[in-house]
């Protein structure tokens, strides 16, 4: 366990080096946050609720999803694919560790910094300029747990997709496709409450809503009391499933291993 903590720690420290990337990231998120908020303000007009969400809810929703993007909510990295393509993976394979565990702790360290720094600062802009909600501690604590669970969940999902690169060289295009699907069904682009019923039903069967929609709804207080526990259980269910698939695909990949370059 100590080893994985140390890996995470280094990933965290490594991420602190790219300050300009952080500022650029925050500005991008704030730009889109602002844009979508203007749109909602125009659409909501004088007031009222849409699908159970007030304008204030919608604005909070926008800033939360923008803040969570770098935590795994709307975007999947191709880090593992890169190491497969460059052959760098040879070094990572020649280590007495779990390959999955290595990448999980690495990604966790990185995302934790994203959450603390990039996420918080982005959300702060939303609070200052659009009065996005400041949650109570009772809402924030389960939200934080849900976000941490979603980090493991989205990582495992990304791991599975990245590992496809063991079988095909063009895995990057696959990532883009899956990213689009994920952004849509996770509720990152649009709250699932706004979906037409059949689409919303599909979304509820997929793991993506557990990545973005569930934590955000907990934050908004739309999921309360015992329902919070159910939502944790749903996340855990997907984690167990996706981690198992990850480990299976890892075993298959090891067997089939083809490393680029002679």
């Amino acid at each position: 366990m100590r080893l994985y903590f140390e890996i995470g720690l280094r990933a965290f420290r490594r991420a602190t080096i790219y300050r300009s990337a952080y500022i650029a990231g925050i500005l991008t998120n704030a730009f889109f946050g602002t844009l979508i908020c203007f749109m909602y303000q125009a659409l909501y007009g004088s007031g009222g609720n849409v699908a159970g969400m007030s304008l204030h809810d919608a604005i909070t929703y926008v800033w939360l999803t923008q803040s969570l993007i770098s935590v795994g909510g709307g975007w999947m990295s191709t880090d593992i694919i890169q190491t497969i393509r460059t052959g760098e993976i040879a070094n990572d394979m020649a280590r007495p560790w779990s390959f999955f565990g290595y990448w999980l702790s690495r990604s966790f360290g990185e995302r934790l910094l994203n959450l603390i720094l990039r996420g918080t600062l982005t959300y702060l802009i939303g609070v200052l300029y659009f009065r996005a909600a400041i949650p109570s501690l009772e809402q924030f604590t389960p939200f934080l747990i849900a976000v941490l669970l979603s980090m493991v969940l989205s990582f495992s999902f990304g791991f599975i997709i990245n590992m496809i690169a063991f079988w095909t060289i063009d895995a990057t295009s696959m990532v883009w496709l899956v990213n689009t699907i994920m952004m849509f069904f996770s509720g990152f682009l649009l709250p699932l409450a706004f979906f037409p019923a059949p689409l919303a039903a599909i979304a509820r069967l997929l793991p993506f809503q557990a990545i973005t929609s569930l934590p955000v709804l907990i934050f908004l207080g739309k999921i309360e009391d015992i329902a919070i526990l159910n939502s944790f259980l749903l996340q855990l269910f997907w984690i167990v499933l996706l981690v198992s698939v990850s480990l299976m695909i890892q075993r298959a990949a090891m067997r089939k291993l083809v490393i680029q370059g002679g």
Partner: protein
Amino acid sequence: MALIEVENVAKTFRVAKRYEGRFGAIRSLLAREYREVHAVDKVSFQLEAGEMVGYIGPNGAGKSTTIKMLTGILVPSSGRIMVAGRVPYQERVAHVRKIGVVFGQRSQLWWDLPTIESFELLRHIYKIPFERWRENLDTFSDILELGPFLHTPVRQLSLGQRMRADLAAALLHDPNILFLDEPTIGLDVVAKDRIRQFLQRINKERGTTVILTTHDLEDIERLCQRVILIDHGTLIYDGALEELRNRFGRERTVVIDIENGLPDNAHDWRPIGVNSVRREGRRFWFSFDRHATTAAALIGEIAQRYQIRDLTVEEPKIETIVRQIYESGSVTV
């Protein structure tokens, strides 16, 4: 039992055929056709503990593929590999705990972090006791002069510094076997020399078995008593470096500067045993087969015809020998 046993090992890659032309990409996707590439083809050899072996061959000969199979990150298509009583890919974790690997062109260090951070992480990866880790780090820092850049981010290191750091990184956990894939690639003479001295010391003092692939035959001449030569995936020579020179380096060259007054028939004359004669002004190159005549006999014969001012005998360079073998593609030179 030998430390490393490689028996009839082969590795065949299936490579998807690519189609050219406008719809090539789509055709490649729909109608996959494969061709087989035999990267390694029935290679066998054994290595004893404490040996230092050069594994050489031209580009694409199958060197790296062999190394990857020995390190357990590539599964052989057929044949048997045993390293220290283990099948590398079956017991990957137990196996890699005992080996060190340096892929010269790919660093194992964390690019953005100070070098020492990677060394510290290695302590946790291999669960090295702190005292032992400290001791090793001090020793390596000393020999490889890592001190000045221990706290510099890896991306700011020169290639020579990075390679030294990579070498230290591969040895912190006292591996029994060290695999080096092109450890001196791209380095200048001083840096190469330092690395060679270090490897020699590690091999001698710690008894670490070293297998290195290289294109720089000076590495081999300086470090290895034994070479294994492969080409097109097949083993074409396994033995002492000296023997390689004796068997394939039969050609010597006598270079002679003569005084003025050339005889008219200088162009046609070719002493017995001489394969070729080249002339530039007053300098002659006589290349001869060491088994057909001797340098002494040849020089005597030349001295009878010409007045010799200066002479040297050129030994074949190991480089030339290996090039000849690569070019002819076989050992039956």
